[in-house]
């Protein structure tokens, strides 16, 4: 036998094929149907918002990694692309370009890189960017282009309120919920995406398709999205049963606003969600409850971004106090 040099390393000697970049590209792929639909509904604006957000996110990550952190940039891992896309999905399709770039900078620069980059950020970067914009530029961030109205124009667009905003304003002005509900589209239209809203959040059906794809590819498990949506459904359902004249029905809550986008694509962010199943249950229920609280009792018509960021803050505590059930733990007497 020849004296060929053999590789020696500790076990295991085989590895599964899923890598960080494959996971990121799967997430991007899962968002593509909803993205295509947004272009169909909102036209050029949706395309421009996404292009600007993705390019600026990647550029900021590259520059900060190379010049501030002085590390080798790894932009091909796809994580900055995902952050850029998620930011774009969370803003109106007519947002001015400089606001998008600013949002990207806050998302990547402050939300992600200031903590040391991928894997270290406590808050979902895209949501940090989004909430920063929402609080600083409330007018631009809540001016929603109406579907199909001005698809070829980037500026003079016909706008309308989101269903959640419309109901909230109406109730505040003392109008009856029954009358208000007659002026918004039906649930089926919501599911298909015929509603004003942030660029990528409108089509529940295509977002659910993305969810199924991510579960099939073993990128995420069903737990977080199902528990978030389930909690929202139960909580808003209880309110609705208690007083149907004051509260909208639970399906309305799930199919409007950013509920599905948030539950499927943002609450599931690896870095900012808990490590154990018990932690995941509490985290997800917290998101569902806070979302409904903000929507029903808070100042903003939509609350899932706040809910996710608030629960992100609890993740380190959840990880510390909710350990996995250890094998051989239950048996005490031995």
């Amino acid at each position, binding site marked *: 036998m020849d004296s060929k040099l*053999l590789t*020696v390393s500790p076990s295991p000697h*085989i590895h*599964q094929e*899923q890598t960080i970049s494959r996971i990121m590209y799967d997430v991007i792929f899962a968002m593509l149907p909803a993205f295509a639909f947004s272009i169909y509904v909102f036209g050029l604006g949706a395309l421009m918002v996404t292009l600007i957000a993705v390019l600026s996110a990647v550029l900021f990550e590259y520059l900060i990694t190379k010049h501030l952190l002085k590390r080798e940039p790894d932009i091909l891992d796809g994580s900055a692309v995902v952050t850029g896309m998620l930011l774009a999905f969370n803003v109106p399709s007519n947002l001015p370009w400089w606001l998008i770039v600013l949002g990207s900078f806050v998302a990547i620069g402050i939300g992600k890189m200031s903590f040391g980059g991928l894997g270290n950020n406590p808050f979902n970067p895209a949501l940090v960017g989004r909430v920063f914009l929402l609080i600083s530029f409330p007018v631009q961030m809540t001016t929603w282009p109406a579907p199909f109205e001005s698809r070829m124009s980037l500026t003079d667009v016909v706008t309308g309120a989101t269903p959640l905003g419309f109901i909230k304003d109406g109730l505040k002005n003392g109008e009856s919920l029954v009358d208000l509900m007659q002026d918004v589209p039906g649930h089926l239209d919501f599911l298909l995406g015929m509603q004003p809203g942030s660029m990528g959040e409108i089509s529940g059906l295509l977002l659910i398709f993305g969810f199924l794809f991510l579960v099939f590819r073993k990128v995420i498990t069903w737990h977080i999205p199902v528990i978030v949506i389930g909690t929202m459904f139960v909580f808003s359902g209880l309110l609705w049963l208690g007083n149907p004249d004051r509260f909208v029905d639970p399906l309305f809550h799930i199919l409007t606003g950013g509920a599905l986008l948030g539950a499927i694509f943002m609450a599931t962010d690896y870095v900012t969600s808990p490590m*154990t199943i018990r932690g995941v249950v509490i985290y997800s229920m917290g998101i569902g409850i806070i979302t409904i609280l903000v929507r029903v009792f808070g100042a903003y018509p939509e609350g899932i971004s706040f809910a996710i960021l608030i629960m992100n803050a609890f993740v380190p505590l959840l990880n510390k106090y909710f350990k996995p059930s*250890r*094998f051989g733990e239950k048996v005490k007497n031995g």
Partner: protein
Amino acid sequence: MFIFNKLKTFPKGGIHPPEAKISADKPIERLPLPANVKIPISQHIGVPAVPVVERGEFVKTGQIIAKTGGFVSANIHAPATGKIAKISEEMDISGYRRMTVMIRVDKEEQWVDGIDTTDELITEISLSKDQILEKILQGGIVGMGGATFPSHIKLNVPRGKKADVLIINGAECEPYLTSDHQLMLEKSEELMVGVKILMKALDVKKAIIGIENNKKDAIDKLSKLSEKYNEIEVVALKVQYPQGGEKQLIKALINREVPSGKLPIDVGTVVHNVGTTYAVYEAVQKNKPLIERVITVTGKSVKNPGNFIARLGTPVSTLIDAAGGLPEDTGKVISGGPMMGKALNDLEISVTKGTSGILILPEKESTRSKSKVCIRCSKCVSTCPMGLEPFYLMTVVQRGMNDEAEQNRILDCIECGSCAYICPSNRELLDYIRLGKATVSNLIRERQSA
């Protein structure tokens, strides 16, 4: 409502790597005697055996060449006939330097008197419980699934404890390996007798053979035989790694959880591997000590992957030659399976009692991908069959936080490698956990002796 015929399995974690049982249908082939055999005097966990032969001495096949060196130890026998050419320290298959006896093998084989070398099946168990235990001790039988724990100790149930069921491990959950599978097919009835012997030694009325469901022919064959050998039950297990881990297997088969730091006997059971069971049959019924074993030689580029019965002390290179030689694209040669096996740096090392397979990986599968940052995906946590947090253990070991590692049960780790297998960032989870286990064990020992 659909009723699923749900296969038994362990409840927590686990993975399903590609099974790659290339050599599954290959009958066991006997290898000719090699020119030399090299026998380390420690092929088991515990105290090394003490050599009782000298250089130049002539030994017959089956003769004791090293005697047990303590309670946790095992006899070593000459696996071939010939002159002792050398007794010196050499590196063994597990990478440690050990006293090794080399025999220059005679063509003419002479067996020690009283060893039955025929294939005749002897079903009647004439020996008493104590005689059986003595035969197993004398025969140098150790756990052949890879852990190589001396079998007679497992069978010597401590005072105050009692086993009520014997578990036979036929899971063979490591990818690629097929030696246990083939043994179950070809030596089915011998195995059943072996189980009966172990039952008698343990004084139990029930035995369960657990086999992963990717070995349906073995399950069928042994199930049919179990009609004749009542009290022995054959159970099909879900194909899920590490199904053959002792604690996982016990949980899957009899739903008892071995508490942290305890042994199977603490929940009333003892587990033996099918290879060990066959060796017990041979030691008790045929008076034949453990001098040979079935070894799978396999790999995607291997010309004739197969299952071979080889004398202990045979060089790895001889086995590889029997399987068609070392492939051109070889990058790594592993003793054992891909999940828990050890990579070899020298192919002249000889096989020992714990060598279940030789796996040859091509160059492109031999090196690890670059490790990246932890993205906290929690896959290692949900995959760990012991309910540990590998990502966290790695971090605390890196930072030297040994107390935290101990409190988070680092010593419960069974080193199955599922965490490192699943990690999308290719992090060196198990490497650091092993390091931490060694450090924490030492600290505990110091604490106890202080």
